[in-house]
């Protein structure tokens, strides 16, 4: 069947606008070239034999492509990279995955449930709870790092996998705000239909409301996975025996660079980057269109 496309009427840009848009395009293009070249440079250097990289750098041939493409660097990422504490590269990857699998369901359920209750039901103390959450987001109480460290140690959570479980309980923050805004905008008519059929609040939330939030949950989960993949400080500070990929690669950085294995280090970094790029490319449309922050009130 032939479909007829109706041409969308476009508003023509004036000459002045066209100049501005060309200028903006040029800035964007320069930025894109810079960031892509930076990546290209690292990727190509990750294939250089160790000696070739060192010689190129010393002899001012930093732009040169590898004479010999040493694919073995990538195999050696898995066999040679090891933190001073003995954590191997595959273990670092696993240390990113298991906390996510452990903590994310708890975080999603506690945050969405809490946000739904606060956004939908009137009960004594509700406004106070909301005001307190807003207060904690707006007022910057700094310098609690020492107290946090002491608390986690007192609770025996230092270097303990339960650290992730306890820390995953959502009580506020940006995710709460995003879910809160979403639940406020969901139509109440679905819930009323369930009430008429004799269903209760649990049915409404878990079977009707939560499935509607899946696109937003997916985006926030992806963002949280990316953030944890890229975060080094938390594990360095609280989970030194379970170093994640960023923390692990940070802790091997000096050794690899000092022993002339820079290209192996680059190969490790490129390997670190690949899963994130795949996730991002697969979900980029979802990530780009599902997030927006509303106003802060209270």
């Amino acid at each position: 069947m032939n479909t007829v496309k109706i041409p969308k009427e476009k508003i023509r840009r004036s000459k002045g606008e066209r100049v501005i848009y060309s200028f903006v395009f040029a800035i964007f293009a320069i930025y894109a070239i810079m960031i892509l070249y930076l990546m290209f440079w690292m990727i190509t250097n990750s294939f250089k034999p160790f000696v070739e990289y060192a010689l190129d750098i010393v002899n001012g041939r930093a732009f040169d492509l590898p004479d010999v493409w040493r694919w073995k660097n990538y195999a050696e990422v898995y066999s040679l990279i090891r933190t001073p504490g003995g954590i191997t590269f595959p273990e670092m990857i696993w240390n990113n995955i298991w906390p996510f699998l452990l903590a994310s369901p708890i975080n999603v359920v506690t945050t969405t449930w809490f946000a739904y209750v606060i956004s939908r039901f009137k009960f004594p103390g509700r406004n106070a709870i909301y005001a307190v959450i807003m207060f904690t987001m707006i007022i910057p109480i700094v310098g609690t790092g020492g107290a946090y460290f002491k608390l986690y140690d007192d609770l025996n959570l230092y270097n303990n996998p339960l650290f992730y479980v306890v820390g995953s309980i959502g009580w506020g923050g940006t995710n709460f705000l995003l879910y809160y805004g979403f639940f406020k905008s969901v139509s109440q008519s679905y819930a009323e239909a369930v009430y008429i059929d004799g269903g209760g609040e649990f049915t409404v939330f878990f079977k009707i409301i939560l499935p509607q939030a899946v696109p937003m949950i997916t985006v926030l989960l992806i963002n949280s996975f990316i953030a944890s993949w890229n975060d080094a400080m938390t594990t360095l500070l609280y989970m030194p025996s379970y170093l994640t990929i960023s923390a692990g690669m940070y802790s091997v950085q000096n050794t690899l660079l000092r022993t002339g294995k820079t290209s192996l280090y680059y190969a490790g970094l490129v390997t670190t980057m690949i899963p994130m790029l795949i996730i991002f490319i697969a979900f980029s449309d979802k990530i780009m269109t599902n997030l927006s922050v509303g106003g802060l009130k209270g």
Partner: protein
Amino acid sequence: MELTLEKTKRKKPINKNRVAFIVMGITLPILAFLVFYLYVNFSSFVLAFQNDRTGEFTLDNFKGVIESMRNPKGTLSIALTNTLKYFIKDIIMMFVNLIFSYFIYKKVLGWKFFRLIFYMPAIIPGLVLSACFAEFIKPTGPVGVIAEMIGKPLPIEGLLQNSETATKVLIIFTIFTGFTSMLFYHGALARIPMEVIEAARLDGCGPGRECFSIVLPLIWPTFSTMLVLQMSGIFAASGPILYFTQGKFETTTLSYWMFAEVYGTGTFGGTGKYGAVSAAGMIFTALGLPIILFVKWLTEKIDIVEY
């Protein structure tokens, strides 16, 4: 016979299912808040007035912090100056992000590709970008080679090992990787009905007026929220100092200093100077509070457009 109408207040029956749902939904988050916010802040307050070793009451933590801030070469004085530099950069970048996302929204040539490119630094691990950038700007790296070619060689120790240039380089790096919050503006811009823009343009509205009189008021809730959140992070503004310099060459910031005091050399409990961290935190919280409340008050003066 007298008929009297008795007014009876009929109480709504308690919906047990709803009560259970509400109680179960709020119990864990409230407990978490009590422990990880309220108790932590109380504990931090106590630590600020405690001697780290003996646990006795003292004002020494505050004295030490103030002394370090008054000395131009003191760690905290340097940290505060750098933090404010990062903060000013962050505020400027908010506007740059807004302007850039406006052009993406207006579908500048290649907008889909650029949207991905601008968001890439949020995807690529910070360590990857910083390690690559650090090698790139070494005197022996590509930037060094170009500088040599144009007759302006880089200092032999490199830009990151020099107190004069290290913070500047770090700020440039954070600008380079700082376009990721465009995503939030883009989300808000995407919700603006195209008809509003088209109608305005047909009525002769120019691009400048369109941007400031139509687009900005429509995305004001997002922008003001980002502004308030940015202000609330005034003393947390920082860069990837851990990856680049570990605070050496006068690059430390308040948040990095606090991290370093707790982490130390990586051995359990860091330096253990939690009291100094808490005292500094109290001082900067007190300084930041009126600024944030003022900005929040100011942003709320502007009416929100409902659409």
